């Protein structure tokens, strides 16, 4: 073996050996982008975001983002850590309101109605735009009470029979009912991680939302539980518009119809998932999905 053998000889084209993209290059590329590559708008959107800026105190986290969420579609938001994709997701149901220093400007509409006006009540909005979080966070209550929580606070059920009906159908749609039907009064926290996350999804759909936001819903789960959730997301698409933030590009490719790539608070590129992963237009997108940084 000659002394000049490198890893590249053994694994040709290994990303680790290719000339890595320098941070300066990224910044230069980022400064060069004006607006977003690709089509941000869709026909008859469920939600429209226009010129959205988000600030944490003086620090700007999101720069001038335009994006639509279509009906019966899964849109995936990908990008390196800290790129603002979770912050952006949390604008869609005004969860950022719970952070005192956070300020959102621009227009965000749901079915054509601005959600950030004084008349819009965040409580009602969040019933229409549900959210599933990164870490499964069931309440310290029984499985039944976890799912019944939303219907109860919104008065969706007139009596116990209706409540039972809502809880059972939500658990069924979340694909959890068969596993828990014999122990609905067991604590939600006694379930496995994947079951807990499906319980959280059941809890979200129990209030009959129109849009479901998912913030890295599988990042705390093993591959088998992840596969179940991904199947579930695909089924849910029939009835809901879904926006999902994910760190896994395979997941984005599997579950979404459109993909939006965020970098350092800017929406770099958006397009059909197939196009983004096979033929990215922007250098940053290409670098990210080929694993040169992230």
């Amino acid at each position: 073996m000659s002394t000049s053998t490198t890893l590249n000889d053994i694994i040709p084209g290994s990303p680790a050996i290719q000339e890595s993209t320098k941070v300066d290059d990224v910044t230069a590329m980022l400064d060069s982008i004006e607006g977003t590559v690709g089509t941000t708008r869709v026909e008859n959107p469920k939600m429209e975001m226009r010129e959205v800026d988000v600030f944490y105190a003086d620090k700007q986290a999101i720069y001038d983002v335009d994006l639509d969420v279509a009906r019966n579609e899964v849109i995936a938001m990908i990008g390196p850590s800290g790129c603002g994709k979770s912050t952006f997701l949390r604008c869609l149901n005004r969860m950022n309101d719970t952070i005192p220093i956070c300020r959102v400007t621009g227009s965000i509409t749901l079915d054509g109605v601005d959600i950030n006006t004084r008349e819009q009540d965040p409580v009602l909005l969040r019933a229409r735009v549900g959210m599933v979080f990164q870490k499964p966070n069931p309440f310290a209550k029984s499985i039944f009470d976890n799912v019944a929580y939303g219907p109860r606070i919104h008065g969706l059920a007139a009596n116990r029979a209706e409540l039972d009906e809502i809880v059972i159908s939500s658990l069924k749609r979340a694909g959890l009912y068969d596993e828990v039907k014999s122990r609905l009064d067991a604590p939600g926290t006694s379930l496995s991680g994947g079951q807990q996350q499906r319980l959280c999804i059941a809890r979200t759909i129990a209030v009959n939302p129109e849009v479901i936001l998912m913030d890295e819903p599988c990042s705390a789960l093993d591959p088998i539980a992840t596969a179940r959730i991904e199947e579930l997301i695909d089924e849910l698409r029939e009835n809901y518009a879904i926006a999902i933030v994910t760190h896994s590009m395979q997941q984005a490719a599997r579950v979404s119809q459109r993909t939006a790539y965020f970098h350092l608070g800017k929406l770099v590129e958006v397009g059909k998932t197939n196009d983004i992963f096979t033929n990215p237009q922007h250098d940053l997108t290409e670098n990210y999905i080929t694993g040169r940084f992230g």
Partner: protein
Amino acid sequence: MSLNTLFLIILLLSIASYVYARRRAFVNAFGQTDNKRRHSLPAHYGYLLAMWCALPALALLISWKLIEPGIISNMLSSSAPTEVKAAGETAVGLYNNEIFYLADADSISQDLPAHKTAAIQRLQSLRTASKILLTLILSGVIGLSLLLGLRHVNREPRARVIVESFIQVFLVVCASIAILTTIGIVLSVLFESLRFFQQVGFIDFITGTSWSPQTAIRSDQVGSSGSFGAIPLFTGTLLISAIALIVAVPLGLMSAIYLAEYASSRARSTIKPLLEILAGIPTVVYGFFAALTVAPAMRSFGQSIGLSVSSESALAAGVVMGIMIIPFVSSLSDDVITAVPQSMRDASFGLGATQSETIRKVVFPAALPGIVSSVLLAASRAIGETMIVVMAAGLAAKLTANPLEAVTTVTVQIVTLLTGDQEFDSAKTLAAFALGLMLFVTTLLLNVIALYTVRRYREQYE
């Protein structure tokens, strides 16, 4: 040499041994050929030698000082005058005490009997001898242990293991001192209580409804055979504690919820310390506040609406005590509410719950075990509180549930039983120990319940 000098010498020698062994470890790793791979840090060898130097010496010093007085006093007894010896052991003890006292006194009066002067001189010479002997033996012990220590440090490369295990032993000893003290207090209260229950039946004590602990001191005294029914005292304690909790729990809990959920971090960092100041006010200040301000105000307010309020009402004492224990509830509850994970709140807000719904249905149930234990802590504080009730509650043991009347509490009675001149074999004095024991058992039960609640909920919720 005096005790302090000896201590100082031991200390200095230990420091010197530490420095010496540490330096030697730097120069050549003890017992190891490969200088770079020393088993322990040089400081560990230093500590090991310092321990060898100090521990045997300190053990000797302490045990000497514990045993010395007994031996000296035995030797004094043997030389006591025959007529004192004839009068029995107690007389000898008294005689010895007098000699000890006279020897320590600044000036000895001249008109002492010759045998006493002789005894004092004998005591002083015994003490001098003891000091010299101690110094000699101590020097020997230190020399020997330093020799042994040096041998040990030279042969034992694993100094770190030994030092670390000594630290563990030291920590265990510290922990046991606290536990042993508690056991000692409980036992002493228990034995005095047993003496009390030999005179007054246990059943009479815990079921009797009349409390008037006056016993006849002289045989020809009129009346006052004493009646020791503790029920009025415990109902009084419970009444005042209940009033205190009725005041403290809602106020404390609401402040905690405000602080944890609504207040901005700036408001929280100002208000929380201010609330905690309430716990720092001396209880005697609360006491005269209750007795001189609150009670008269309640009395005149009661009169104006046609109620007769005693000027030492349970209400006044209870309300003031409630104010005092607010920080126990608010501060601890605030901590447990803040400790509820943000993800729980996010989940609730994400489902469209309002802030108060989130607090009532998610945060509060999750924090409940901690809140319960904070309330029980406040309750045991209220039950054991003394100064406020001594000043603001009455002395008469009345069996009543009316908060406008004067009641007395267990702690007040213990204070009145034990203040002033007492004889320690009368039922009256011993009753204080029995009351103390009952009080201790009550608060212990409360603490056990608190621990049990917390554990039970924790199992259920995790």
